[in-house]
């Protein structure tokens, strides 16, 4: 695109043809007031607050809807511009209530701020103001619709970004109201973003309603802990209490958005039943203990179980939101004790890839690229519920490109699918293989003989050919495997198929992972087959073996295998039968009370410093935003002290940075070791009982989310997980 030259407030700028005045001014750091304009939404130009003075035009024009032109001379502060804005403000304030003192938005309200500059002290409007009845749109968002200024940002967000229009403008003229359809709750998994978008206090966060004023809070940067993107957030807190969590802009990861799960999960920490002191179970009774005695008890019991079995009869399991530092120390501690039974993959069924040591993260192309794909093939990917913000990216690409899916779910999509195949989950790999066969026909020079041999006998149909064609002919294309794939009994086969298809069609490919730190846990060495940074390790038992075989002792690190594992029933059994279970957890509820012998109170997310490594392999470190309550301590400190009790060497860390730096050095030294995927064993029929389970629900993914009150009250909490199609459980 060409460039034009223009002047804003006397300063010369260059701008893209077709951009709006307000965009150019924003880039230049010149602020123009606005209500309806938002850089991620379409232009509505309905508020008229952004009036500017353009020399060649007699009347003031809206900067958000006026494209730039060569030689344009724009003034943002002339009498003409300012008086136009003042008139707009006067109209807006006619019906706006004067309730800033009791409004949560007060202090961070765009209307309040701008009325300081453009509003009059006294209103000329003496008639009655209109009142709009509040709507109940669910447990996450509070409404005060009298405050609404009809900017329609919330409506456009639903329509454009999410693709599910739940809000709308009903009525007309003075009677216009923003509402959902007849008081329906909002169902979308990214609904909380309209709270940020709303320039006034019409839409506020319900869980934090009336909890603090904007100016009393401090903010700390952190990383969200509930999906593999690692969305960037600000944690807002007051006097050591988390009040709310809001997005922190990062174009490469979460843009300006945040999923409801990441936004409202903190409630588990502030209102959940927290474990505040260590506890030891004596004669079936829980007794509070101090750290010293709790840890010595743990140490002596661990020595007993581990020592008695040369490490074979003890196992450590890591939960879905544990930091890299914690998993690194966890495995270092257990390996120091000659125990290699360490795993975080409590939802994996297929461990056949474990022989190849690799620290590849799920995606080796930037997530951002999903916006620009001409063709995207989803394999068992329930993006809306697994990584809600990724679904928004794929949706963007469907404006020009094609999304296609082979999903054994009754999928819910917020974008159009060009092709959808719903195979029986038992035949997911078989169905996928048919696309590879189709691709191989179109481009036969890529697959080597052995692979062709493997695929022999698989037949493709028209739809597989169409999918293959779109991937091959798209200039940019990718294959995305959902979390469910890694839970599938043929995960390795499907991974291999994806890699093969990607090489034939020259597509990118990536797989989504469970939890927020699967990549970090793997790099940290919290797996039985390799130690930190892909280093060597004696073989240990994997999660499945640990849970199914039944060990004598378990160390659960913020992990509830009885809920989150695919082997939950067996896990509960094994835990109940073990002679010693220690659970490090932020919470004092759940079945751990029954099966554990010691409970160690550790910090939840936002209460500890640490690092999450996201699915693209980006390392994101953060400091603790608030202190963990009472006696609970950051997990890495607990592990350090415990290691000292075992007199293990190399545990004298003073900060979590030292821990992560140590790992980083190892990681960098190891370099990338690419190991070619082996051809998988021939496709076999999958065991019925192995597949016929549901994936983890949207609000079931980790110990924190499961205890977040408001999230649990949303309609989605009960309707998701969607069961795998055609399977009766």
């Amino acid at each position, binding site marked *: 695109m060409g460039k034009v030259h223009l002047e804003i407030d006397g300063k010369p700028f260059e701008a893209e043809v077709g951009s709006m005045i307000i965009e150019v001014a924003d880039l230049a750091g010149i602020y123009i007031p606005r209500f309806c304009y938002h850089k991620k939404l379409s232009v509505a130009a309905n508020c008229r607050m952004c009036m500017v003075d353009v020399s060649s035009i007699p009347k003031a024009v809206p900067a958000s809807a006026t494209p730039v032109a060569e030689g344009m001379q724009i003034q943002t502060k002339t009498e003409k511009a300012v008086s136009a804005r003042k008139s707009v403000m006067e109209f807006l304030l006619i019906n706006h209530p004067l309730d800033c003192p009791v409004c949560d938005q007060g202090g961070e309200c765009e209307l309040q701020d701008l009325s300081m500059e453009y509003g009059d002290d006294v209103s000329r409007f003496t008639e009655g103001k209109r009142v709009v009845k509040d709507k109940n749109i669910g447990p996450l968002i509070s409404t005060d619709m009298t405050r609404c200024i009809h900017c329609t940002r919330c409506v456009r967000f639903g329509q454009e970004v999410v693709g599910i229009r739940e809000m709308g403008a009903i009525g007309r003229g003075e009677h216009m109201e923003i509402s959902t*359809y007849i008081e329906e709750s909002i169902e979308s998994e990214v609904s909380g973003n309209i709270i940020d978008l709303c320039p006034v206090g019409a839409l506020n966060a319900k869980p934090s309603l009336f909890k603090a004023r904007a100016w009393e809070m401090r903010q700390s940067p952190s990383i969200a802990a509930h999906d593999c993107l690692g969305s960037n957030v600000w944690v807002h807190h007051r006097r050591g209490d988390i009040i709310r969590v809001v997005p922190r802009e990062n174009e490469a990861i979460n843009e300006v958005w945040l999923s409801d799960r990441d936004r409202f999960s903190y409630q588990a920490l502030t209102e959940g039943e927290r474990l505040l002191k260590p506890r030891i179970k004596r004669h079936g009774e829980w007794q509070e203990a101090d750290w010293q005695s709790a840890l010595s008890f743990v140490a002596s019991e661990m020595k007993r179980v581990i020592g008695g079995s040369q490490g074979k009869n003890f196992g450590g399991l890591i939960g879905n939101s544990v930091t890299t530092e914690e998993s690194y120390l966890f495995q270092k501690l257990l390996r120091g004790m000659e125990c290699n039974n360490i795993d975080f993959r409590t939802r994996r069924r297929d461990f056949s890839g474990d022989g190849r040591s690799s620290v590849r993260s799920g995606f080796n192309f930037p997530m951002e690229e999903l916006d620009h794909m001409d063709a995207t093939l989803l394999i068992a990917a329930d993006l809306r519920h697994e990584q809600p913000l990724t679904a928004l990216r794929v949706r963007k690409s469907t404006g020009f490109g094609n999304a296609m899916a082979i999903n054994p779910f009754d999928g819910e999509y917020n974008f159009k699918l060009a092709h959808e195949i719903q195979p029986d989950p038992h035949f997911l790999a078989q169905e996928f293989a048919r696309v590879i066969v189709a691709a191989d026909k179109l481009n036969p020079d890529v697959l080597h003989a052995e692979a062709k041999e493997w695929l022999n006998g698989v037949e493709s149909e028209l739809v597989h050919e169409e999918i293959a064609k779109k991937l091959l002919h798209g200039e940019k294309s990718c294959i995305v495997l959902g979390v469910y794939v890694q839970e599938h009994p043929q995960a390795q086969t499907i991974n291999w198929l994806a890699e093969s298809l990607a090489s034939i069609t020259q597509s990118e490919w990536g797989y989504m992972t469970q939890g927020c730190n699967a990549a970090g846990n793997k790099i940290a060495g919290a797996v039985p087959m390799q130690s930190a940074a892909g280093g060597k390790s004696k073989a240990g038992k994997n999660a499945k073996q640990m849970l199914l075989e039944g060990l004598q002792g378990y160390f659960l690190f913020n992990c509830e295998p009885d809920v989150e594992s695919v082997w939950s029933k067996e896990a509960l059994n094994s835990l109940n039968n073990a002679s010693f279970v220690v659970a490090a957890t932020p919470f004092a509820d759940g079945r751990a009370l029954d099966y554990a012998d010691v409970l160690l109170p550790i910090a939840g997310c936002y209460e500890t410093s640490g690092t999450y490594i996201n699915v693209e392999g980006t390392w994101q470190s953060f400091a603790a935003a608030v202190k963990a309550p009472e006696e609970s301590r950051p997990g890495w400190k607990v592990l350090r002290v415990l290691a000292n009790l075992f007199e293990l060497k190399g545990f004298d860390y003073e900060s979590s940075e030292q821990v992560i730096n140590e790992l980083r050095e190892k990681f960098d030294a190891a370099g990338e070791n690419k190991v070619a995927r082996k051809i998988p064993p021939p496709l076999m029929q999958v065991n019925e009982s192995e597949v016929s389970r549901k994936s983890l629900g949207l609000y079931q993914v980790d110990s924190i989310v499961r205890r977040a009150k408001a999230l649990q009250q949303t309609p989605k909490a009960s309707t998701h997980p969607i069961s795998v199609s055609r399977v009766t459980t």
Partner: protein
Amino acid sequence: MTDLSYDHKQHLKTLLPEPAINEIDHWIKKYPPERKRPPIIAALKVVQEHNGNYLTEELMQAVGEYLDVPQIAVFEVATFYSMFHLDKVGKHVISVCNNISCSLRGADNVIEQLQNRLNIKLGETTDDGLYTIKTVECMAACGGAPMLEVDKVYFENLTEEKVDQILSDIAALEIAKQKKPADLSAEVKK
């Protein structure tokens, strides 16, 4: 669990007679297939006509499902246009404009007169279910202010006499209609 036997798209067909559905289909065909929202108005008009001059939640929902548009999009249209009624209304809805031109030219008097003659307030319906009076936004007939619309006919430059005349005409029509079945049967007997 969702009831799988319930076909959302077909629900409207169970609520309306076939000719009505055909009429809606006729409107759908006028627009390109990816443009789903334009036929909403036409569809709601047809539906309202078949439902005694008003819309119900079930009907609006069925229209949304039939046209494959979000519920809220149907609701927006239904609440925007004053010709759509979300509550039961009389057979003859008298819509009086009370926007600026009509107000300046005496819309208030017209409303007053209607309320007195029919003995109901704005927004109410007479007990016999025949008349409803309501106010509407500008009907683009400012040149003939004050104005009202009833049974799809505009009446402009209203005076007291004219309003009386309109009401008498409708009444006469109703009386004639009530007679009709009897008259007809008399004819048949002959």
